[in-house]
């Protein structure tokens, strides 16, 4: 998993039916101090995350697990909204 900041969202009308009703969020990894940095990537939301929030996401096949038994195609899924982060 990695920390990320939600910086936007994507809307797609034509898509895999399993993605209906799912939020596709644009995220950036966070560096020291919690600032977004690097290249943006997309992650599916499973937890109700939104714009500006600090989150962590899971990668790989486990990214589909939060939606089971629905088989949702995702390789990055936001699984938590971070309350606090001590570095």
């Amino acid at each position, binding site marked *: 998993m990695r920390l990320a900041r939600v910086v936007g969202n994507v809307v797609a009308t034509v898509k895999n039916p399993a993605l209906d009703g799912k939020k596709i969020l644009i995220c950036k990894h966070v560096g020291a101090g919690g600032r977004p940095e690097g290249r943006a990537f997309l992650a599916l939301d499973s937890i109700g995350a939104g714009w500006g929030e600090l989150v962590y996401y899971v990668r790989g096949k486990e990214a589909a697990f939060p939606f089971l038994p629905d088989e949702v195609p995702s390789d990055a*899924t936001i699984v938590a909204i971070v309350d*606090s982060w001590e570095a």
Partner: protein
Amino acid sequence: MILARVVGRVVATQKDRSHAGAKILQLQPIDPEGRDAGEPFLAFDGVDAGPGDRVLVTLDGWSASWTIRRPGAAVDAAVIGVVDTVELA
């Protein structure tokens, strides 16, 4: 598996139910000499590691989910050991 150093801790209330009760650590990957090697990431803690500890980490999701006895949890990394020593030939 890889070596890493514990650099932080993350607390989240609103999260996937498979993460309930899990301790989440922020880790810095390191090489055997202890130098930073890559970007920090998060992992479940299966061994009660603490800040600054050098740890052994699995990057396999299935193994990671077993560290908190929750097979199939939405997790991709877990701390599975605290390293005492590293010897290089």
